[in-house]
């Protein structure tokens, strides 16, 4: 609403609350600061009560949600930091700049904990690129943006996930997660705790780009994007690289007490949050802030979201040491504030006070209790004749953008820099990176909009289950998760219901599997204002896990002569599957998830991997058994001859057996099939030998037919599909 002369996103209730708390009318600058900090994007005012359900503690967790990144203790004095960010709204109108600056944003959160960024993951959702030129344009530019930025700063992008669906046509989702590595004794917090310390702004200058970025992300996209133009942010990875080097050196030197990244809401949120966390106040000297255009107003300065800026809280008296480090790297710096004990953020310009707000007031938006209502619309089941040619169905699924190999994407990402990437993209279910203490970190990101759309509770839990399965498949024990909840307009009661249920599903399963949440993001308003169409519920989960030693790392390639074992029970659960999507169908409800059974299955498979019984492992997910087996064959360039009638399964048609997406299933290969099967079955985990690896075709014996798919044909479908769709003219 309009407050005085200022256009804000504040509700009348928030305006009323602000006036009451302050006991006076805030001025224009103060209203702008409140608006920026209280935007949904920065304050989580709608979502805090819901995300409070997530479990956040475990013996390994040093810091949970509420900090720039979550922190996990991995022993020997080392820690991992983990964070996820999104740039959905900017990427929808400037996919290159939006995605690139998304990378820039998430890396700052890792950096300001005093840790070194060592890997990225990207979780992306686009419209149907087989039909839409617009989505092709968005996708190509998003990938190029992530590549240019990540490659330039020298942090490998090692894993990711891309989903394609009509609902993302005008509202693409661009999520980037970052993993950091550091020393426990060098951890920094984004807190200004000591009066007398200086707050130094380093990096780029403050300009008019990115004004209203946070509030931009807290509204739906308007048809006329003219207004949106000032929300565009220019990526500058070269400056970021210099900032990374300078910040790490400053942090090593011990002169930095805290570090805060400037993202949504710019200086307003950065300054108020460090003071609020440190329970202190700040005296801010507006004239000290380096600005790009001489006629910028105080409002523009305080809410600008110009990129590549960070705040360093430097110990009193150590400002010269900082200056020397910044000068070495050519990073601009300015002392813009001083920490005091007032509990107030006071902004002056050449001595004249222009804003005066209690830090805890501005940093803590009043919670909005939103209403939720379950949808009443009934969904129809889907009846269809079994297609005659199941080889064709399998090949079509292997070609489909969501399932097909993402080689076209990850070959544009430098995934080797840092010389840690032991399991590279396309080789295994998760990325695996070596750590200095002999252990390895495994990371993966997953989402499933089809499942979550049908049932957000089961869907949310299933996404977490799948992500953990992917970690187990490489020999890792899941340790902590990040959740990224992406939904439409929270004012819509059904959308808010879906959000609440998804978080509940994630929280309930996280508790059962003992994987706490150490951070995350909520991104609302992902809907097209013109059509009113919201995206499907899209919670995305990233999980980090630990592999005890290099020998445990397991990849997915089939190898000659090994025995294939299918673990888990396949149920008649084709609803919500990629198979159904390929037929334009949805179904009624997603595959069920038995929390305890999933937990037991994962633990059982991990033990077998650690004990050396498993030579290759792949989890069964999108595309079911058929696709999973094909992927292992393609990875190893080896066929297999398998009798799927031996797979533990309910009674069902051949197509259902092949493409059902039941949870809690893995495909393993082994040289000790008897040991493996008995180890699993004695723990109540269904397992059955299916056959042997060999030959140049995937030969599957089903209940009513035999399927034979030639390896070269499958490879061509799977490996070359994206190239054909996006760049048909390239050889």
């Amino acid at each position: 609403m309009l407050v005085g002369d200022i256009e804000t996103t504040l509700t009348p209730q928030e305006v009323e609350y602000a006036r009451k708390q302050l006991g006076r009318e805030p001025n224009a600058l103060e209203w702008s600061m409140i608006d920026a900090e209280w935007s949904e994007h920065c304050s989580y005012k709608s979502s805090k009560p819901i995300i409070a359900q997530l479990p956040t503690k475990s013996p390994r967790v040093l810091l949970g949600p509420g900090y720039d990144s979550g922190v996990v203790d991995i022993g020997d004095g080392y820690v991992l930091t983990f964070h996820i960010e999104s740039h959905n709204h900017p990427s929808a109108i400037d996919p290159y700049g939006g995605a690139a600056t998304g990378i820039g944003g998430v890396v700052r959160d890792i950096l300001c904990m005093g840790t070194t960024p060592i890997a990225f993951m990207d979780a992306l959702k686009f419209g149907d690129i087989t039909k839409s030129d617009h989505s092709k344009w968005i996708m190509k530019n998003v990938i190029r943006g992530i590549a240019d930025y990540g490659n330039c700063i020298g942090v490998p992008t090692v894993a990711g996930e891309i989903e394609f669906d009509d609902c993302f046509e005008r509202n693409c989702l661009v999520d980037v997660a970052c993993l950091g590595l550091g020393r426990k004794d060098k951890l920094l917090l984004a807190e200004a705790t000591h009066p007398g310390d200086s707050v130094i702004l380093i990096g780029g200058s403050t300009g008019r780009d990115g004004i209203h970025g946070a509030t931009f992300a807290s509204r739906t996209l308007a048809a006329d994007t003219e207004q949106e133009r000032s929300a565009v942010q220019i990526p500058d990875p070269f400056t970021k690289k210099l900032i990374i080097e300078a910040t790490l050196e400053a942090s090593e030197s011990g002169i930095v007490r805290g570090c805060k990244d400037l993202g949504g809401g710019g200086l307003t949120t950065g300054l108020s949050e460090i003071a609020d966390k440190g329970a202190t106040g700040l005296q801010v000297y507006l004239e000290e802030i380096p600005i790009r255009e001489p006629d910028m107003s105080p409002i523009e300065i305080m809410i600008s979201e110009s990129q590549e800026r960070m705040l360093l809280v430097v110990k009193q008296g150590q400002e010269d040491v900082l200056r020397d480090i910044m000068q070495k790297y050519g990073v601009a710096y300015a002392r813009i504030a001083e920490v005091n004990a007032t509990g107030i953020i006071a902004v002056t310009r050449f001595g004249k006070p222009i804003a005066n707000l209690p830090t805890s007031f501005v940093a803590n938006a009043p919670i909005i209790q939103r209403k939720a209502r379950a949808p009443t619309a009934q969904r129809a089941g889907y009846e269809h004749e079994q297609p005659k040619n199941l080889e064709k169905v399998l090949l079509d699924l292997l070609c489909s953008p969501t399932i097909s190999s993402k080689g076209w994407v990850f070959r544009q990402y430098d995934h080797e820099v840092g010389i840690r990437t032991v399991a590279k993209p396309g080789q295994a279910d998760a990325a695996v990176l070596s750590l200095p203490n002999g252990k390895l970190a495994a990371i993966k990101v997953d989402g499933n909009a089809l499942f979550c759309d049908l049932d957000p509770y089961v869907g949310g839990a299933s996404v977490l289950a799948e992500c953990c399965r992917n970690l187990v498949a490489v020999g890792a024990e899941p340790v902590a998760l990040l959740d990224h909840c992406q939904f439409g307009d929270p004012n819509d009661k059904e959308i808010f219901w879906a959000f609440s249920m998804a978080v509940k599903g994630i929280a309930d399963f996280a508790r059962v599997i003992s994987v706490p949440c150490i951070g995350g993001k909520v991104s609302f308003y992902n809907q097209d204002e013109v059509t009113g169409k919201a995206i499907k519920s899209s919670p995305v989960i990233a999980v980090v896990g630990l592999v005890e030693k290099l020998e445990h790392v397991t990849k997915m390639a089939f190898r000659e002569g090994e025995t294939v074992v299918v673990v888990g029970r396949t149920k008649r659960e084709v609803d919500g599957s990629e198979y159904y999507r390929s037929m334009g169908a949805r179904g009624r409800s997603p595959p069920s998830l038995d929390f305890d059974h999933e937990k037991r299955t994962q633990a059982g498979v991990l033990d077998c991997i650690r004990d050396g019984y498993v030579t290759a492992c792949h989890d069964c997910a999108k595309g079911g058994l058929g696709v999973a087996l094909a992927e292992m064959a393609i990875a190893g360039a080896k066929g297999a001859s398998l009798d799927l009638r031996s797979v533990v399964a309910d009674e069902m048609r051949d197509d259902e057996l092949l493409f059902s997406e039941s949870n809690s299933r893995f495909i393993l290969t082994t040289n000790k099939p008897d040991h493996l099967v008995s180890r699993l079955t004695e723990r109540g985990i269904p397992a059955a030998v299916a056959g042997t690896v060999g030959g140049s075709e995937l030969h599957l014996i089903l209940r009513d037919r035999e399927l034979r798919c030639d390896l070269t044909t499958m490879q061509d479908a799977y490996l070359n599909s994206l190239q054909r769709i996006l760049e048909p003219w390239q050889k």
Partner: protein
Amino acid sequence: MNPTFSVEVVISNKPRARDPEGETIIRDLMHKSGFESVKEVRTGKLLSIKVEATDEADARNKVVAMCNDLRIYNPVAHSLNVRVRPEN
């Protein structure tokens, strides 16, 4: 038959937006090598296009329309500078 016009299209970041490449070139190459008199550098991409049109205005309109339709530049982030060379 319509005459052919030479049209030069320069795509660069919008004037108000930063140009990190230009900044690096002036700071780390030119000024460090003693060319202090250079005050600003902005970079862009040049397309030299030959197009058939009825007159200069038509040539310009055709090229601008094409650049918009094919997203040769993104108006959200870039500005388009179009120069039609006089007909020979």
